[in-house]
């Protein structure tokens, strides 16, 4: 699966999202989708332990999620971790789509693919898993770097 995280240096966010939607469309039921998501979680580019602190935690999740971002050339590279494996799968999917992309592209990105891969139930802002907070946080990093670039 690590393949995906390397490959997407060449692909646009849109293309990666389509790829993810394709992959998930192979599954018939939620169980397979969740198992695949958990699988993806295991391939998440892990955050360096030094960043697993309060400062890097995303609020609004029942489980802990840490995200770190840095600029490499003109692209934002994300790493993350979570103490819950489903949450890890969710953030892995987001990072696969958003990491190694230009800040402005991240800011502009649509996230409706989440719905298409059958994770719609995670999309409400009131959800305890914090998917919406995660997207917000990733985009905030992008905004911060975009501001530096301007």
């Amino acid at each position, binding site marked *: 699966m690590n393949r995906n995280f390397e490959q997407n240096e060449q692909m646009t966010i849109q293309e990666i999202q389509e790829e993810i939607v394709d992959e998930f469309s192979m599954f018939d039921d939620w169980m397979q989708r969740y198992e695949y998501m958990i699988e993806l979680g295991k391939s998440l580019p892990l955050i360096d332990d030094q960043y697993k602190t309060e400062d890097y935690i995303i609020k609004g999740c*029942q489980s802990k999620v840490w995200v770190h971002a840095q600029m490499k050339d003109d692209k934002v590279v994300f790493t993350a971790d979570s103490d819950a494996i489903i949450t890890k799968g969710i953030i892995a999917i987001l990072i696969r789509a958003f990491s190694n992309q230009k800040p402005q592209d991240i800011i502009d990105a649509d996230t409706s693919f989440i719905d298409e891969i059958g994770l719609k*139930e995670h999309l*409400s*802002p*009131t*959800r*305890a*898993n914090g998917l919406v907070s995660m997207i917000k946080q990733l985009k905030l990093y992008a905004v911060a770097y975009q501001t530096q670039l301007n």
Partner: protein
Amino acid sequence: MDGREISLQFRFFTSFKMTNKDTIQSKLNIDTIRKDFPILFREVNGRPLVYLDNAATSQTPRQVINTIVDYYQNLNANIHRGVHTLSQEATDAYEEARRKIQEHFNIAKPHEVIFTSGTTHSINLVATGFTSFLDKDDEVLVSAMEHHSNIVPWQMLCERTGAKLKVIPMTVDGELKMEEYNKLLSQKTKLVFCNHVSNALGTINPIKGIIDAAHGVGATVLIDGAQAAAHIKADLQALDVDFYTVSAHKMCGPTGVGILYGKEEWLNKLPPYQGGGEMIAEVTFEKTTYADLPHKFEAGTPNICGGIAFGAALDYMNAIGFDMITEYEDELVRYATEQLLTIEGLKIYGTAKHKTSVISFNIKGIHPYDIGTILDKLGIAVRTGHHCAQPIMDFYQIPGTVRASFSFYNTKEEVDVLVEGVKKAKSMLL
């Protein structure tokens, strides 16, 4: 009769747009509306109920009742932090209600809407929160026509802090003396509180002027919207008010829920009111950190069903339209005023130029309680007494009034029953 011929008697309806009564009644389709309110078909003492106690609490349309039933049959769960579907659906519905309230009152941010158990709770939250912001040289101004809920919490605040409570006086018509108000305002004024509509007199207070003048001296303003909200759709951003309070049960919603609107900066400044679940971010026995808005002020399991049903009540009223409601209610009150004043010895308290939906009156030589009792025998529900506004009664030096208060589901025919009832009561009691 035509709009330009409004007699002296009705001078307090200068802003009244005159239309053919039947047209309004049919524009609103009152018969259809009344069918939404099952209680209106009840009998009382063998007579059809004529419910004219809307200022105390409004009746509940089946759309709201159905929302409640649906909640307990399909959605009931504790909200926030729950992973399971029921909890998430209940949370969504509750937060959607908050959003509806935000939209209705044109509030900037959803977390500026704090769910409370009603106006009284909302006001106490603010009054308690101000304890550390006041000292003995400060002054707080209260209008002369407040409900006890908008007097007692501030008296308690003044007792705690030593600040001084000053009263904005009113005229015999029941209008605030704005020149006096402007004279009372000074750098010492820290807080001003006033209702939007007086529940005892029906006066619509000039709150925009009150707010702007208070802000001119740096004072904070709380407007008690409990009595206004069923009749006037307030635009809180346009008003630039600091705090505004509403009770759902007075606007077709359920009992036990209301809101406090507060500007974000104020809500951030105020300390939490109650401690408990939801309102904290982190708890140890040594230290507790508080959660973000709105949770900081929403300790414990809230009235979840109540909040959701409040949203349904707003949907219901907005589907009818507040313009229509206001126009129709004004018409009803004008008609009732006209008819009541044909009764000799009947005096109306509260004859402000701008008023809404409330007629407080007495008949010379008769105690309001006696009239209320006879009207009840005739199936007519009015309120008698001081209406939790004793200072107003003291002002007029009366023990109380009979108060008929109207809603958009009342009819001209009900006004006629009221007038006949008052006449009957008078003949029995004098």
